[in-house]
């Protein structure tokens, strides 16, 4: 894991240093004299050899210093941490929704293979995987917010959110017993969560269905059936357990897609998370912020995969 992280830092550093524009010139401003540009270049260490600059970059990143945003004039690390709960609230609800719907659908589709339900599920999953997330977001917004008027068009809450404890508005409202705010937060969450959940659900359905079918055709299931163990028990006790481990390994991957889709979905719903921050930085050409965002997501992604590996080792005795 550490070599991958170091490699990622190098990659981000490399991308940010192929920029054709001169960062010192941008920072110094349009009307800066050559002396002023030279001074900025020297002050920020941009005149040092690249390996030395890289060394400084690694040193800063390790202590959590990702530089200053050219746009907000605040440390990028602070900006990112402040926006993290909003994105995680979206991603976690979407994940939970996708699992709660996707796993049962996948199991039922596998148990009733080639039934009408199986075909319907298949069409929905194929559509869910082929749809651009931002387009789905706009369609939902058009239907539920603009035409039916049952959900807010965009944003995370009316006015200010509840005083932060966890940073999750729903959880904070619940902890403070503020039911109005909770209801409101949930209404705001509904569409972005649905948008993010659909492709994730489609992936979960596919893997669960394939996993269950795979286990159903294995020898030990035939053996149990031959021994006269009731089918219901075979399904619940033996098939599901081995099949769902396969689904679990996908969850790390799916979480990555969720975060990636959040970039565009947050933009559509004006959700104040990491994704809309990244897009805002793109529009401002704030490349320090974009690079830090990339690095930050990479760290989250690597951590998630690590957690999944641990969970799998705990659940699957074959891995011990």
């Amino acid at each position, binding site marked *: 894991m550490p070599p991958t992280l170091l490699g990622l830092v190098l990659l981000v550093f490399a991308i940010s240093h192929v920029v054709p524009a001169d960062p010192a010139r941008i920072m110094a401003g349009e009307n800066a004299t050559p002396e002023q540009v030279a001074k900025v270049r020297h002050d920020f260490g941009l005149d040092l050899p690249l390996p030395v600059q890289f060394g400084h970059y690694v040193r800063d990143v390790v202590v959590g210093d990702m530089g200053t945003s050219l746009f907000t004039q605040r440390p990028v690390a602070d900006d990112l941490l402040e926006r993290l709960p909003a994105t995680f609230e979206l991603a976690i609800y979407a994940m939970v929704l996708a699992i709660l719907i996707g796993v049962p659908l996948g199991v039922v589709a596998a148990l009733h293979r080639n039934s009408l339900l199986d075909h319907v599920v298949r069409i929905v999953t194929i559509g869910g995987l082929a749809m651009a997330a931002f387009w789905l977001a706009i*369609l939902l917004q058009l239907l539920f917010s603009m035409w039916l008027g049952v959900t807010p068009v965009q944003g995370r809450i009316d006015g200010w959110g509840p005083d932060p404890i966890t940073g999750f508005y729903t959880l904070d409202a619940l902890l403070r017993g503020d039911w109005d705010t909770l209801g409101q937060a949930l209404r705001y969450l509904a569409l972005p969560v649905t948008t993010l959940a659909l492709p994730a659900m489609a992936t979960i359905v596919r893997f669960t269905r394939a996993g269950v079918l795979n286990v159903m055709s294995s020898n030990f299931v035939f053996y149990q059936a031959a021994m006269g163990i009731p089918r219901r028990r075979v399904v619940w006790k033996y098939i599901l357990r081995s099949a769902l481990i396969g689904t679990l390994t996908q969850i790390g991957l799916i979480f990555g897609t969720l975060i990636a889709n959040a*970039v565009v979905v947050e933009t559509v719903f004006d959700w104040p998370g990491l994704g809309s921050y990244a897009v805002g930085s793109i529009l401002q050409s704030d490349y320090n912020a974009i690079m830090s965002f990339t690095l930050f997501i990479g760290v989250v992604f690597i951590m998630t995969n690590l957690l999944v590996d641990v969970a799998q080792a705990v659940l699957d005795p074959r891995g011990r």
Partner: protein
Amino acid sequence: MMVFRRLLRDRSALLGLIILATLIVVAIFAYPLATFPQDVTSYDPPHRLLPPSVTYWFGTDRMGGDIYSRLLFGARLTILIAVVATSVSVLIGVPVGLLAGYYNNRFSDLLMRVSDIFLAVPQIVLAIAIAQTLGPAIHNVILALSITYWPFWARLVYAETRSVKNEVFIEAAIALGASPLRVMVLHVLPSIASSVIVRTTIGMGGTILVAAALGFLGLGPPPPTPEWGRMIAESRGFLPQAWWYAAAPGMAILLVVMGFNLLGDGLRDVLDPRMRRDVR
């Protein structure tokens, strides 16, 4: 021929094939098929934001451009981006995977380590970072997608090469004095080609989705290029009235990506019986 005939018998693969054939025909004959071919570059403000009608099949956009005609020309762009970016990824990823899988030394470890680094970030995030650095242009979109996608093929080919390497027919080829290059290209590659073909087909769909997202975020080719993702982004200012403005390009993306996914699934069933869908 056998493969092709079996593919035609699979209903969903056939559907995918029809969608993609239509896309290619539409892209080639965009000019004669378009009702207002000049609308791709010129403006017609008096006819802006008109709903779908007999004259304007899918309505008109904010500049008065005919959306149907613009979609046809957008198909060219979509094919160009998907084919070039995916080909470059394959051309980088497959040799890397072959070398890393065939040899077992420090260099091959290094190759796989490097591809792991690229896989540590979701593809779209890395593509955004690269496209933003390089600036909005079609060749930069292609470059960003190629740089982010090659590790998928490297990983796949690496794993497949590793499992094929110990087969008897490879040992026999080596024993007969075949050079490593010959073994890799003439013996290993043909036996892993089917999974590469399947992954490439499905990968095209993924590339199109990421390219559209880049366009949506304003990192794609600049206007007036009829890029589908950008068209959806433009439509947002005119909702809920001009619903057709957002609906048509999104539908086009959905159909094309679905076409690649269906064809990929079908190819997997036909080329690789181990992975057949009804068994898996």
